[in-house]
Structures are given as C-alpha cells and as structure tokens.
C-alpha cells in the first residue's frame, strides 16, 4: 500500500507539470496584449519599460521556469514564514497579480474562506441528504419513494445551477423576502444575531450547490446498496437472526460505502468548478469570482495560478480517492 501511494505521488508530479505547461502555453499562444489598456499617449519606450516591469521581457521558457519556482518553492516558504515567523522568503519575488499589484496568493488567501464556507458547507449538506435517500430508495427499490427519488435526482442533474440560483432568488428573496440575495462577505460573526444572519445568507447558495451534490451521490449510493443487498452474506446475516436494522445499516451499508467514499472524494474538485457559477449568481466574493474578475481584466498571472490551483485540487483528490479505495477495500491490492 505504501509503495502504491508513493508511486502515485511520484506519478502526480509529471501530471501537474504537464497541466501547468498546458495552461502556460494556452496563455502564451493567446494573442491578447496586456498593454492594450494603456493609453496611446504613453510613448513606446515607456511602454517597453512597463512590459519589462511586468516580467514580460524574457522568452517563454524562462518565464515558465520562474513561475514554477515562484509557485512551488517561494510560496511554500512564505507560508512557513507566516506560521513560524521565519524569514526564508525575504526579498524573493512572488507571483504578482497585474490587477491588484499584490501577490496573487495574498488575494487568494483573502478570498478562500468565502468559497470554503459556501462550497464546503454545501458539500457536507449535500452528502448528508444524499446518503439516507440512497439507502432508503435502494432498500425499497421501485417503491414510490424510489421513483420520486429517481425523478428528483434526474432534475438535479438536469437543472443547471445558473437556473436554480435565480429561481430560488425569485422565490425566497423577491417573493417571500426570507433571505438576502446578495452574499455579504464583510459580515463578521461575533454574536448570536450575526450568526443567524450569516446562516440566512448562506442557505440559498448552499441549497443550490447541494442539489447537484445530492443528485449525484444518492444515485451512487443507491446503485452501490443494490449491488450489495443481493449478496450471499446478507442472506447469511438474516439467517443468523440479526435484526433488519443491523443487516442494512451495519453489514450492507459498510460495504456499500466503499465506492461511495471515493466518489465523494472525486466530486469535491468539480464542486469548486460549479462554485464559479454559483458565486456569480449570489455575488459571493470567493476564488471563483476572483477568476472571473481576473479573466475580464486580462490579469494573466492570477488566471494562471488559479487555474493551476483548480487542477491541483483535481489531481490531489483523485490521488486521495485511489488510496482510500485501497485502504477501505482489502480485496483491492495495487502491488
């Protein structure tokens, strides 16, 4: 198992390098000019200096190497410095956003909590709703509940978040006036009332994202439960006289959870992608909104770094899913 994990870790490195190269080349080949916004009255030699100041003077491979060094070597040092008060990163160049004139990672660190709160909470809520639905609809296959569950999950698959978002805004904010429809990111939770306000403004984005999660995971849960319910060991457990509750919730559930856990791990990065849209709908000031803003402002270092971070999340959770699968299921041995 350990060798497998190490092998996968080593394999992840070329994958990540390839992805960062793809992103870099995509930005490199693009014909857009970051100087296009500069007024025409600025003389060309000044423009050339500005270009150099942005680090655009060198050829592509040097800039790619610099970006790699900054992202993988200097940024972790900054993080260590921040936590332990050391001075590893002093005087070293970091990835600078053209838009904010500040290190990209500083902006990311400001934005990340909003995304994590909304996205993380919605994922937890979605999974918590999905599991019981999946279990029950498998246990009572083809019952009314199962049919209704199938229909609702089909709807969850089919209705995109950019429709459910405005829809819940229309219903719950405009018509009923229950929840605020703009997410206030400056809101500070310091007492009970502000906590309630935070809860109220989080409900709608969480609901929209959770619908998608629920649809997917309850499908997997149901299929996995159905696979296991007809196994011989279930009949044995019933023949031993165990109660139905124990049979389903202990014997079957534990075995059915194995593929579901990996699906949960695999789905996490996709949720970050979906959050880009949901953040746009509810004006949540997270990293999805940062990416959109950077794309509109032609801020290439931010776009490159953020896109790579999304890729990193995907590779990382794929790895976790693979390793988890091996740990949870003793029948699977990767050696």
């Amino acid at each position, binding site marked *: 198992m350990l060798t497998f994990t190490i092998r996968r870790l080593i394999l992840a490195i070329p994958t990540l390098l390839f992805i960062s190269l793809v992103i870099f080349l995509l930005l490199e080949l*693009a014909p857009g000019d970051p100087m296009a916004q500069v007024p025409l009255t600025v003389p060309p030699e000044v423009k050339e200096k500005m270009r150099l100041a942005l680090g655009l003077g060198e050829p592509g491979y040097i800039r790619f190497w610099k970006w790699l060094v900054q992202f993988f070597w200097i940024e972790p040092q900054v993080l260590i410095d921040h936590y332990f008060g050391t001075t590893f990163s002093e005087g070293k160049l970091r990835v600078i956003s053209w838009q904010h004139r500040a290190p990209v990672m500083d902006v990311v660190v400001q934005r990340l909590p909003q995304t994590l709160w909304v996205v993380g909470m919605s994922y937890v809520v979605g999974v918590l709703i999905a599991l019981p639905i999946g279990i029950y609809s498998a246990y009572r296959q083809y019952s009314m509940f199962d049919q209704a569950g199938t229909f609702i999950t089909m709807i969850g698959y*089919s209705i*995109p978040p950019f429709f459910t978002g405005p829809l819940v*805004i229309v219903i719950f904010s*405009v018509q009923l006036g229950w929840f605020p429809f703009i997410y206030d990111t400056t809101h500070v939770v310091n007492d009970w009332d502000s906590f309630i306000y935070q809860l109220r403004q989080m409900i709608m984005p969480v609901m929209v994202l959770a619908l998608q999660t629920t649809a997917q995971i309850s499908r997997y849960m149901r299929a996995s439960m159905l696979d296991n319910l007809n196994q011989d060991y279930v009949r044995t457990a019933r023949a031993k006289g165990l109660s139905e509750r124990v049979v389903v919730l202990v014997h079957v559930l534990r075995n059915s959870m194995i593929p579901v856990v990996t699906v949960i791990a695999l789905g996490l990065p996709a949720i970050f*992608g979906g959050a880009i849209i949901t953040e746009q709908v509810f004006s949540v000031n997270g990293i999805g909104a940062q990416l959109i803003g950077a794309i509109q402002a032609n801020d290439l270092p931010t*776009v490159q770094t953020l896109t790579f971070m*999304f*890729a990193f999340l995907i*590779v990382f959770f794929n790895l976790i899913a693979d390793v988890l699968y091996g740990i949870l299921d003793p029948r699977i041995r990767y050696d």
Partner: protein
Amino acid sequence: MTDMSNMEPTKPERSQWVDVWDQFKHHKGALLGGIIFIVIVVGVFLGPLVWPYDAQFIDIRARNQGPSWAHPFGTDQLGRDTLARMMAGGQTSIAVGLTAMLLALGLGSLVGITAGFFKRLDGPLMRITDLFLALPILPLLLVMMLLFREPLSGAVGPERGIFILIVVAIGVTSWMPTARIVRGDVLALKEREFILAARSIGTSNTNMIKRHILPNVLSPIMVSATLGIANAIITESALSFLGLGFPPDFPTWGRLLNDATQYLQDYPERVFWPGLAISLTVLSVNYLGDGLRDALDPRIRGR
C-alpha cells in the same frame, strides 16, 4: 407436403432495431423525453417561419410587457418579443449542443477504438486521457474563450467565430468519458470468439474495426451521445451566463438567462422561460439516454 410448409417459421424476421424499439417503447420516461426533445427541436427550427416577430426587431414602445396574446412570453427591455428570442436562442444552443457532441463523440470513439484495438497504443492514449481528465474544464474553457474570441471573430466573423470556438472548446474537453467506455468495450470484444473467427479467415484490421468492432460498440456510443448533448448545452449556457459566450445581441438560452438576471428585482418572471427551456431539453435528453441504455442492452431486453 403441404404440412411441411406449415412448419416454416410464420413470423417475419425481426431486425435488431425492431427489438430495440420494442424495448424502448416500454420506458415511459424515455419515450416522453424523446417526444419532448423532438418537439423542442422542431419548434425552435420551424417556429420562426410561422411566428410574425423577428428576434432582433426592436419595438421600444412595447418594452417590458408581461405575457399577452401578442407576446405570449412578454417582451424584454428593448421591446423584443421573448418567444422569438427564445426560438432564435434555442437554434444556437441546440446547434452548439449537437455539433459539440458530434465532435466529442468522434474524438472519443477514435481514441477509444484505437486504444482498445492496438495494444501498443493503449498505454500512451490512456495516459493522455487521464491527463485530460485532470484538467479543470470550466476555468480552462473560460480562459480559452477569453483568449481566442477576438482573433477568431476577426477571421471568420463574430458569430461564426464564436460558434466554432465554443464547439471546438467543448468538444476537445469532453471526449474522455466516451473514449474510456469505448476502450473498455473494445477490450472485452477482442476476446470473443467471433473476432477470433474473423481474424482466422484473414480479415484486415480496417475491416475488422468497420464490420465487427464498430457495430458492437454502437450502443455505448449512442448513450454517451445523448449525455454529450446535455453536457454541451449546459456548458454553452454556463459560458453565455458568465458573459464569455456569444456576443450580447446574439441570443442563446444562457445569454437570455443572464440578461434576465439583471432585471431580477423588477421582472423576476423573465428568468423562467430560458431556464425552463434549458432544463427541459437537458432533462428530456437525459431520459432519452436512460431509455436507450436499457433498450440497447440485449441482457435487459425482453424483460
């Protein structure tokens, strides 16, 4: 001797597709989904021939109207008829969905069959597939839209340029599931006796793929085609919704939804129609795929 002729099979021979259709008919959801999808496609492409208003016709005195007999879906902030715009938008959305699906399907089948059939290419092609699966699709699509829209618009005109860009971008980033499924099926097929028999009478590789492999992997390809349409329509709408799709005066369902959200407080009902159209199309196509999967699987058929 007349008795002997009665022993002949009386039933006419049934082709495989008749069996498929028989099974498909039993799946109510799929049948309904298929009908709805056909109605939407026909309505969207033939509707503008019957409907008197043009999608671009501005009637500023009739702006911001609610539903009426003249404008069943109301009008927008410039007095353009929403029904006409929905039909025009649907043409683009469905055209993008179908073309992108065909491109993804072609790429996916090509990679899948090559990887499954030629052992030497299997490793490299599957590694490439894995790499593509690890790409963050939505951010990359956004970046592609940002970077290549201007030059392509300049080269072949704004609408056609963005159409090509969106179709290629979606096609290139969504072929991987098809490739994996097709490869798995081809690998399983290669072990079967009929392939061995065909091989032993000297069938060439090209003929082997054309006559024996391709017809047998058609069902997973068709199922992923339906899922591909749904996926492409949602992706295109998402791009348009984020303002990185087609130009503002060029309606698509996602674009209309985006325009409507800006008037959410005053005219909340405007969000409803484009959203419903997207959801209904995707839902019907998904049910269609569900039914096709059941109908094309000979193990389930006849139950």
